[in-house]
């Protein structure tokens, strides 16, 4: 395996993962993973199903505790934060979930305004005004704000999820499989919206996907995870000449190569 390229040279990383380990029973999902993401950078982690992409993201978000290793955000170790410290850190984060994870019991505008009202204590009227402006930013009419999540199509749910992720204008935005389950055209619309929103906010972005078209569009830098580690990382323009057989096999979608698909769980 080739060594991944040195990241963020000369700049303090916004996010730095060092020696991250996470196991579920006998299955070691993360196995000493290292990754650095510079401020304002958009990094996409690619990799097959079950390689630990979601676990990696959940360890950064604090939804899972790593067994070993550290997660630094803005130079601060966030692996052992108390509940209130974690809540404060979360105010700097935005997250677009794979299935959008909209709250069924709230109308769309309250979903978007949730972080503004609950975490920032904003008034209902002001939060609604901002929520509708964020819905407009992702191409949705104000009338959509009055609908319920169950009434939305898959593409609309993703857009609402994106509006919710950017509503509090976070420093760091996470995207979990942003185009999974969408048709190619809607997938591209979401990709364009992600690029636009991240640029407008000047945010740092970490995405995980196995959709190469999406990765090429939204990434400044791509990192590939395999065997619980980052086996290659580099600018998106270098992905086709990585010289890494694992990366080549993955981006070209070949069954033959060093990556053997696990048919049965061991």
């Amino acid at each position, binding site marked *: 395996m080739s060594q991944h390229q040195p990241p963020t040279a000369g700049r303090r990383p916004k996010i730095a993962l060092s020696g991250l380990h996470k196991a579920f029973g006998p299955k070691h999902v993360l196995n000493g993973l290292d990754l650095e993401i510079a401020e304002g950078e958009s990094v996409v982690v690619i990799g097959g199903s079950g390689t630990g992409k979601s676990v990696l993201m959940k360890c950064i*978000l604090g939804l899972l505790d790593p067994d070993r290793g550290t997660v630094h955000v803005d130079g601060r170790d966030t692996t052992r934060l108390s509940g209130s410290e974690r809540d404060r850190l979360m105010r700097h*984060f935005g997250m677009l979930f794979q299935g959008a994870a909209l709250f*069924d019991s709230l109308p769309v505008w309250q979903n978007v305004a*949730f972080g503004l009202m*609950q975490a920032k204590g904003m008034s209902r009227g002001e939060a609604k005004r901002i929520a509708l402006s964020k819905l407009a930013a992702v191409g949705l009419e104000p009338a959509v704000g009055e609908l319920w999540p169950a009434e939305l199509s898959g593409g609309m749910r993703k857009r609402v999820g994106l509006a*919710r992720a950017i509503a509090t204008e976070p420093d760091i935005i996470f995207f979990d499989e942003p185009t999974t389950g969408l048709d190619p055209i809607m997938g591209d619309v979401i990709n364009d919206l992600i690029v636009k929103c991240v640029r407008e906010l000047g945010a740092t972005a970490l995405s995980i996907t196995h959709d190469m078209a999406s990765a090429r569009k939204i990434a400044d830098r791509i990192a590939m995870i395999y065997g619980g580690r980052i086996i290659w990382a580099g600018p998106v323009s270098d992905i086709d000449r990585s010289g890494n057989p694992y990366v080549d096999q993955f981006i070209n979608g070949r069954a033959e190569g060093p990556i053997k698909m696990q048919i049965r769980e061991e």
Partner: protein
Amino acid sequence: MNPLAHIGRAFSVFLYGVGHFVIFGARGLSHCFRPPFYPAQLGRQLIDIGYYSLPVVGMTTLFTGMVLALQAYSGITKVGAETAIPTIVIVAVTRELAPVLAGLMVAGRIGASMAAEIGTMRVTEQIDALTTLSTNAMKYLVVPRLIAGALMLPCLVLVGDIIGTFGGFLIGVYKLGFNPSTYLGNSWDALEAVGVISGLVKASAFGFAIAVMGCYHGYNSRGGAQGVGAATTNAVVSASILILILNYIITELFFSR
């Protein structure tokens, strides 16, 4: 495999489950007294548990009171103690039947709905989404349900006491031929504060137990629709068993000599 190993493993899993549940309940209880609070969520749960459970609790206690009067009559006519029927009805309803039956009915209605709602939120990542929006899911989802359960079940049981006694009155007066004022007078004489209070204390404990079980099983559900289904079943079964255990413990505390 060694059968002793099977037993040992099953016992370990049981103890782990009990410990996990107790920690969850204790965490939930501790969050009840620490801000932030979510009054809108609490209001929704108060209405859902209290107001919307009234019909089912009312029907249950009405027919229980009626059946109790009939059964008591058929049992005690042999010893010529028919005048004890109002006493039997009011004591049994206020001390035991209203709290236990209301608890079991609410466990079926509310425990299942809590486990299904929170379980669906778990498997669709809505609970993770709450966390990423700087909102403590225990405070936002669990605490309002615990408080509403502990507050509303006593209210339901108080209403159930009245309706159950009224059910006995209907049968006593219109079927068994009691004089209405005599029946009411006997009932009033038999009414004891300790009976009513013990019923209300039981109801509060049952309401809390139902909410903890519903939230615990929903919060820890895994594996999609099947996991949510299992969580719902487990919530109702375990809440029902816990109600019966707590009923014995509280009865022992109030009435043992």
